[in-house]
């Protein structure tokens, strides 16, 4: 009498997960739009304050476009907001205040 060896449940789970992951990667590559190249004027250093161009909203669709979309269309544009790291304590007296030489307050250790 022949009998097949029983596969463990964990092996089955692993196989399903592998299949799902591979399918996701395949469909992503198929439908994602190409990345735009970075503006050469922009620095990669997040501590520098670049001159940011306002992000333009995509123009509204003029009408029905007969494009077969399976998974929600093009990937959204990535919006990058760079904040300048302040070296001095936050000053409620307003942006642009000169960096204090010293401060006065309750005597702290």
């Amino acid at each position, binding site marked *: 009498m022949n009998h097949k060896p029983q596969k463990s449940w964990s092996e089955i789970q692993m196989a399903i997960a592998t299949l799902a992951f591979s399918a996701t990667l395949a469909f992503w590559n198929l439908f994602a739009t190409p990345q735009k190249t970075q503006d050469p004027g922009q620095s990669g250093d997040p501590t520098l304050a670049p001159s940011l161009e306002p992000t333009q909203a995509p123009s509204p669709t003029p009408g029905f476009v007969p494009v077969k979309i399976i998974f929600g269309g093009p990937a959204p544009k990535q919006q990058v907001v760079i904040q300048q790291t302040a070296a001095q*304590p936050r000053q409620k007296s307003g942006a642009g205040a*000169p960096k204090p*030489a010293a401060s*006065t*307050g*309750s005597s*702290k*250790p």
Partner: protein
Amino acid sequence: MNHRLEFKAMGSHMVAIVESPASRAPALLEQVPLWFEAWEQCLSRFRPQSELNQLNRAAGWPVPVSETLWQVLQAALRAERISDGLVTPLVLEALLAAGYDRSFERLPAERETPATAGWPRAGSLDEIQLDPASRSVCLPLDMQLDFGGVAKGWAAQQAAQRLAGLGPALVSAGGDIAISAAPSAGERWPVGVDDPFEAGAQLETLLLARCGVATSGTDYRRWKLGGRWSHHIIDPRSGRPAQTDVLSATVIAPDVLQAEACAKAVLISGSRDGLQWLETRPQLAGLLVLENGERLYSRRMQQFLWRQS
């Protein structure tokens, strides 16, 4: 060229800045912590063998004192006069009764039982016998002195005067700031006013030339005693921590000793009387931050505030 040094002394953060092209400026600046150490050894009530504690233990006897202690005692007498008695070195027993019996960093956040209550006879500074010829001091029996913030203000002023020989100097002793002169470029020194509600943040930036600025506050040096909040600003009228709606008071004055005394007086007086007191003194400018977050500015304060042009 600005030379800057930061260090710890007298339980506080110190900053010393001198603007000078002299090559010996850094070396002189390195001496500043040593000056403060010598002054602290003389004036601190937290050092058992300080000259101040020796004087207190010798009450009833005339004691020759050092030039440092003599000058600080004179400064304390002056502070008592200009503050209409609200700032006095005669509150040591009241400070101890309020729980401030050791340096603040060693004070527990909460104490289970209150210290000895009551306000013993404070005496009067007029009862102290001073002999300028021998530079001796005789304290009445049962009188003890504590210089408090006067010592820090005096130290800041001394250090700034010594550095001023090289160029415009600014010295901050725990927020009591002495400025010997404006920087040579014609600008003024920018000095921040700490926000008592938010550590690290500042309410205003002041632009200052030769003057003194100091802040008195109950926001930091406070602790719980017998389940109730206590702090280190004693109202000599009651012998207890001042009951006031002012959380911090910043005063600009012609010199730091005056600023220190007046800031404390304004805080003890409360917002209404304190602001009125400031307005009657044209050499002073003040900013009060109240417990409820409200800010009050004296009229003369406007000329010192940085504003975006």
